[in-house]
């Protein structure tokens, strides 16, 4: 069978990820250009909500279009972003938990849910059942919130919309006040209704199928989760914090809040087609200015070894009849 790897998840990255333990992955990231040095920040900057004094688009939205990526690690561990199962050294030497409330940095699971999370984590490296496979290994969309600490991503803005282009997955945030989809429609990227208040994009997220999970330790929500996101941008345009409150009586004992810091990438940064944070290439044109452009990202095969033959898009045989 011909191995089909298209642009999104390149063979190089697949080999970096394949079969390596989390701590080794970090070492690989630090060792290759543009591949995650920024993800070694150990603190989360404070960005206060307030007025927006930066540039605006013609429709009045703060102009935050461009490329962004998180600064404190990947999806190995939600609660210990630079840790994961094999981390060594004092916890204080690493970035804090993405759980900013409660103060202990733990997701306030109900007992059954914590047990389910532990079961996933215990089987991650040697899955034998379909539910033990990290959905990203099958090219599934990263969903909410995992998309914000997987690869870098691009924000494009339009009157009435903010578009988030992830690897993989796409979110369309509606700013025009139309109602949410009916609640029985559950989606990988959920259904998003947003509005701007000063420097903050506030997004009401419902209709989440919650199938994407939060990462390799199996943290999760249910399809009943309601997420209120605040994207709080610094007025210098260089940083923002993603602050999201998760409410889900099916899984948690109380609402809790995640904080995920991100920084902007521009033409001042190195474009790396198959890197982590800023997957772009120089555009081909006659002008004097450097233009970095994003490539098509369509995942066909990803992280095969995790999950014993897991692949994304099926290579053989129909899966729909429509």
């Amino acid at each position, binding site marked *: 069978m011909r191995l089909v790897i*298209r642009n999104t998840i390149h063979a190089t990255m697949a080999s970096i990820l394949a079969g390596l333990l989390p701590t080794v992955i970090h070492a690989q990231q630090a060792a290759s250009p543009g591949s995650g040095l920024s993800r070694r920040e150990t603190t989360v900057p404070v960005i206060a909500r307030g007025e927006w004094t930066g540039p605006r688009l*013609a429709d009045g939205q703060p102009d935050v279009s461009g490329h962004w990526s998180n600064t404190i690690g990947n999806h190995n561990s939600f609660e210990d972003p630079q840790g994961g199962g094999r981390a060594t050294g004092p916890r204080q030497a690493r970035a804090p938990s993405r759980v900013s409330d409660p103060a202990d940095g733990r997701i306030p699971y109900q007992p059954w849910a914590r047990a389910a999370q532990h079961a996933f984590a215990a089987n991650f490296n040697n899955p034998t059942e379909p539910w033990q496979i990290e959905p990203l290994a099958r090219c599934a969309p990263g969903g909410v919130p995992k998309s914000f600490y997987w690869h870098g991503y691009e924000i494009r803005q339009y009157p009435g919309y903010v578009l988030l282009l992830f690897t993989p997955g*796409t979110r369309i945030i509606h700013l025009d006040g*139309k109602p949410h989809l009916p609640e029985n429609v559950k989606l990988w990227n959920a259904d998003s209704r947003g509005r701007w208040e000063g420097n903050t994009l506030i997004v009401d997220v419902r209709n989440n199928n919650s199938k994407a999970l939060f990462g390799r330790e199996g943290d999760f929500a249910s399809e009943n989760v309601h997420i209120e996101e605040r994207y709080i941008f610094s007025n210098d345009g260089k940083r923002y914090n993603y602050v999201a409150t998760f409410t889900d009586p099916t899984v948690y004992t109380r609402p809790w809040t995640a904080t995920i810091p991100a920084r902007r990438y521009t033409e001042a940064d190195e474009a790396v087609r198959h890197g982590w944070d800023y997957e772009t290439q120089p555009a*081909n*044109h006659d002008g004097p200015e450097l233009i970095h452009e994003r490539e*098509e990202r369509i995942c066909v095969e990803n992280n095969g070894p995790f999950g014993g033959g897991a692949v994304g898009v099926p290579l053989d045989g*129909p899966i*729909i*009849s429509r």
Partner: protein
Amino acid sequence: MSTYFPRPRTALRAVVTLTALLAAGISSASDAIPRLANGKPDFSGIWQTTSAADYDLEPHAGRVDAPSGAGVVEGHYIPYLPEAIAKRRENFENRLTKDPRLKCWTLGTPRGIYYPAPFQIFQRPRDLTIVFQFGHSVRTIHTNNTRHQDERDRGYWLGDSRGHWEGDTLVVDVVDFYDEVWLDRSGNYHSTDLHVVERWTFLDANTIEYRATLEDPQVYSRPWTLSVILHRHREKNFQLVEDYCFTLPYEEHYPPRPPQQQAPVASREAR
């Protein structure tokens, strides 16, 4: 005398006014289409064809797997090279199992445009972004005077798209394709050498004429052109509803469920 002069003036004024109205009427045909602040046509919106193009680009009577259709190819038939027609026949024979759409693969260019599902265009002066409901894939058409990448080895599903304006028509040159893509459900196909030139033109504010000329020296004896009409979705609160499709075989396994609900397949069916 003074009572006479106003009459011809009034008449003249009426003629001038009528002429101005006519001129306004004529120009309103082009002024009535949406435009960006820079004056270029604004294709932002959610679009879909009503044609049967995706079933078979060529003229066809109704059959078990396709409604009838007059075809969307100029000159009716795709000019296959003699050595390429065999593969097209084989594709047709196996169409109920081999169409890449059945595996939820990205539909490609131009198929994604006339596939019977909506797509949304988001437009800025520098580019147009197309999000397809089917597969939720994303295509960018660059309109910032950039050229194709010099390397043509990427094998994009949707191609490397560079657009420019010819009057109010968006002309898009698309190259660097992947070849495991069909053009329709009947097995029409192309190779990695496909070169597409699209022409997007408003017929009115809610209707686009979409034309695509396909050139592929491995498969066709000459360039050929297809044309479909795209209609704007204007239903109240209409929006794309993501349809990843290829995730369907494993969706039932996630997320974990409370002990009393651990029958995911059954619960899905009950819904």
